[in-house]
């Protein structure tokens, strides 16, 4: 029987990063994947959607750039070419991961892992032994049993990435990140899109005033908030609106994006403690079974690719590295790559208030920012909001809406992780002109003094 220091099941951003880091520390590592290297992130999530969204943004810019002096005629959107570009991106990244595994001497086995016990995993007829086991099996789109959920035109984020023809209309059930990004993409390329959301607002992690602006800016999308879907038919979606009245919505395609479920099937032999959200872990990602760890979506703690990678690093560091690391969740940035883009890190104003903290906040408009104005004009929407502790002025949260938000937000993570105060960040020099200066302006809006 082949023996390894570490067996990792699932090759997404949790699993392959764990394998890579452990391999680079000289450990013998086996990585088992049932489908594609890179997992959902590379193949059906982060990456393909960014590829498509970028093509949609280019298309929109081409249509709208006349006022800036660029006159493009007969601009069309070619779905086949966009899909081909997306596919090439995926394959390049996939082979990149393959190369990473090879260069870190990680053994990769493609197949479905059967968990024998905490130290043995079987793939096909072969049993492998590992001293430690990392479960990184990820999550899958949740499909609630709404009448009609199994109709052919009802898709999840997986199938919608390989459509061959744009539908005339799309109903998106669920206004979370996935729903909003697809809504943004499809509406940008000319599809009539409606979002039906059960809650009173889209994007629950977003500051309330930002979500409102986001909706206003997604001009081609119709929002039905506080609505509960009651059924899906060949022609569309029926739901009850906020007032309890039954309504109909015509749609050629229906995207089910109401959340994701942890992939915990097949783990029975390990006798893991599994809650509704996923495998129960502590802040070192340890499960109730010694030597078994769970990272990424499967533990339900933070369903983000970068969270999964970080969790993997915490586990590998504690096992083979400098050790003594804990997963911290308070400064994990998130981003929505729609049109417009948005990103955030740390507490929103509401969350801070719910925690009983005394806070100070300021919100500034991006149109006061040089680069933003030059590139987008004074009508475009852009906001920056900072939440800080009222007494210590430690930065607790940063929220952005506007271009480059996702590229800037890491700075907020650094500030929050380092527990920097407003006056500390004031001493940091930001490049000019850049949209990032909006953050410094917002800090000064809270604390004018030097």
């Amino acid at each position, binding site marked *: 029987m082949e023996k390894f220091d570490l067996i990792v099941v699932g090759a997404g951003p949790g699993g392959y990063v764990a394998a890579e880091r452990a391999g680079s520390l000289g450990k013998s590592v086996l990585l088992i994947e049932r489908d594609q290297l890179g997992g959902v992130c590379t193949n059906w999530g982060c990456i393909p959607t960014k590829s498509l969204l970028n093509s949609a943004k280019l298309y929109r810019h081409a249509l709208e750039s006349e006022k800036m002096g660029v006159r493009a005629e007969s601009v069309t959107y070619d779905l086949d070419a966009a899909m081909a570009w997306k596919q090439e991106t995926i394959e390049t990244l996939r082979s990149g991961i393959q190369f990473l595994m090879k260069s870190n001497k990680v053994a990769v086995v493609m197949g479905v892992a059967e968990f024998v016990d905490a130290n043995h995993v079987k793939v096909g007829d072969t049993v492998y032994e590992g001293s430690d086991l990392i479960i990184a099996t990820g999550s899958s789109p949740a499909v609630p049993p709404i009448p009609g959920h199994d109709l052919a035109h009802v898709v999840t984020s997986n199938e919608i990435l390989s459509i061959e023809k744009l539908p005339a209309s799309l109903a998106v059930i669920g206004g979370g990140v996935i729903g909003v990004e697809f809504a943004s993409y499809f509406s940008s390329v000319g599809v009539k899109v409606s979002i039906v959301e059960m809650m009173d607002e889209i994007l629950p992690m977003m500051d309330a005033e930002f979500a409102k602006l986001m909706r206003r800016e997604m001009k081609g999308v119709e929002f039905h908030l506080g609505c509960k879907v009651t059924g899906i038919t060949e022609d569309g979606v029926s739901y009850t609106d906020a007032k309890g009245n039954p309504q109909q919505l015509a749609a050629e395609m229906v995207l089910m994006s109401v959340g994701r479920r942890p992939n915990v099937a097949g783990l029975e032999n390990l006798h893991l403690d599994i809650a509704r959200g996923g495998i129960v872990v502590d*802040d070192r990602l340890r499960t109730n079974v010694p030597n078994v760890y769970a990272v990424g979506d499967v533990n339900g703690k933070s369903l983000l690719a970068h969270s999964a990678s970080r969790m993997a690093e915490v586990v590998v560091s504690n096992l083979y590295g400098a050790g*003594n690391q*804990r997963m*911290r969740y*308070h400064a994990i940035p998130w981003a929505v790559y729609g049109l417009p883009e948005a990103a955030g890190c740390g507490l929103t104003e509401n969350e801070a208030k*719910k*925690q*009983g903290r005394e806070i100070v906040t300021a919100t500034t408009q991006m149109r006061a920012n040089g680069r933003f104005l030059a590139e987008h004009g004074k009508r475009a929407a852009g906001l920056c909001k900072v939440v800080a502790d009222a007494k*210590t002025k*430690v930065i607790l949260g940063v929220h952005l809406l506007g271009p480059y938000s996702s590229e800037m937000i890491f700075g907020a993570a650094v500030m929050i*992780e*380092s*527990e*920097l*105060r407003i006056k*500390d960040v004031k001493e940091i020099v930001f490049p000019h002109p850049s949209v990032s200066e909006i953050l410094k302006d917002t800090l000064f809006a809270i604390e004018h003094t030097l």
Partner: protein
Amino acid sequence: MATEVLMPKQGNSVESCIILDWRVKEGDPISIGDVVCEAETDKSTIEVESTAAGTVLKLLFAAGEEVPVMQPILVVGEKGEKVAATTAPPEKPVDSQDATATVASVATAEVPKQQPDPVATSTGTAGSGGDLHISPRARAVASAAGVDTVTMVPTGPKGRIIERDVLEALKGREPLSPAAKEALVNQALQAPAQGTGIGGRVLVADLASAGAGKSTTGQLSVPTDFPGPVSEVVVKGVRKVTAKRMHDSIATTAQFTMNAYADASVLQSLRARFKSSDPELGLQKVTINDIILFAVAKTIRQFPYMNSHFLGDKMRTFEHVHLGCAVDTPKGLLVPVVKYADNRSLKQISDEFKRLAAMSIEGKAQPDDLTGGTFTVTNLGAMGIDTFTPVLNVPEVAILGVGGISMRAVEDAEGDFTFIPHIGLSLTIDHQAVDGAPGARFLNALCRNIATIDLLMAL
């Protein structure tokens, strides 16, 4: 002509410097600008340069001594020249303990009237009233980093902690976040060597109250999402005393609890009769607890080893019983003591305990009322507690916990089961002083006496 080299002034705030190391010795030739010694202020380490040329005639201080600024530290002159009497060094170098004594005496009179020589006086002002075992600079570094200096290994002259000792102790410590640093300066907090932030950075949440490391509660904080608002109250007053006494109790004794049930039928009927008795007898308010106190006071006379204090190297056994009884007051737990409980009748115990309990609850109990116990009773029976593990009121060797009354099945002579009310009794003993069997004998006797409380009252 001999010239004095002075300890230079280092800005406005530095009042004195410690001579770390002499670079010259008596008899050495010296020029202006030569380094004569290294000295430490609370802000930096400096090199003191000579302001005179010639030969070093006399070093006026030993390394490690603290010298006020603008005081002469050495005398330079021509070779063989005599040092003037006014600049003669003190006969004996003042060691740190003497210096402490001197500081104390100087503190009462700022300018001593008798000044045999100025140098001796100036050494007396060393430390400006602070802790003489740490240099001001070392103290400043330590407090900025929030480290406890008690555990540091001093390598400075005369066992003093100097800057390098603090820096040594800081090795391996992770940096503080700016906010944590600020919190340290403003509050009496201490930083752990490693925090929960990036790279082990110490965050505000990781800071513990100064001195908390020595208690049981001040552990390194772990990152936890506390639900909702959190309030913090400084531990003081009765809570603080209780915390210390409870911890001392657990830490210094070998506690061992045994549980038993006493037949409470007579107890209950007696209580019922008191309640319905002639008001003029004044017995209506006698409670179950009073009766238990009475039973304990009577029983313990037969078991003197239970009526003792364990003092480590000796045991003190008392003839009379000063019986403490725990009272729940708005301020927290208080234990008033019924003095000479063994000499009192049930009514007297009842009256005295009521008086003491009322004063405790009102916050008017005198220290004498709350000390001097030889045995303690604590009663949670009224709150529906069956049995529990009372914590010893050290140095007493035993404490009785009284539980509630509940029905227990008892087999009678005919083999039938009947339900009889029983009261739960939990006796914690200090196994250092009393063994299990003697403890059990006492508890057993107490159970019997409670079961036949009517007879006990005749004794």
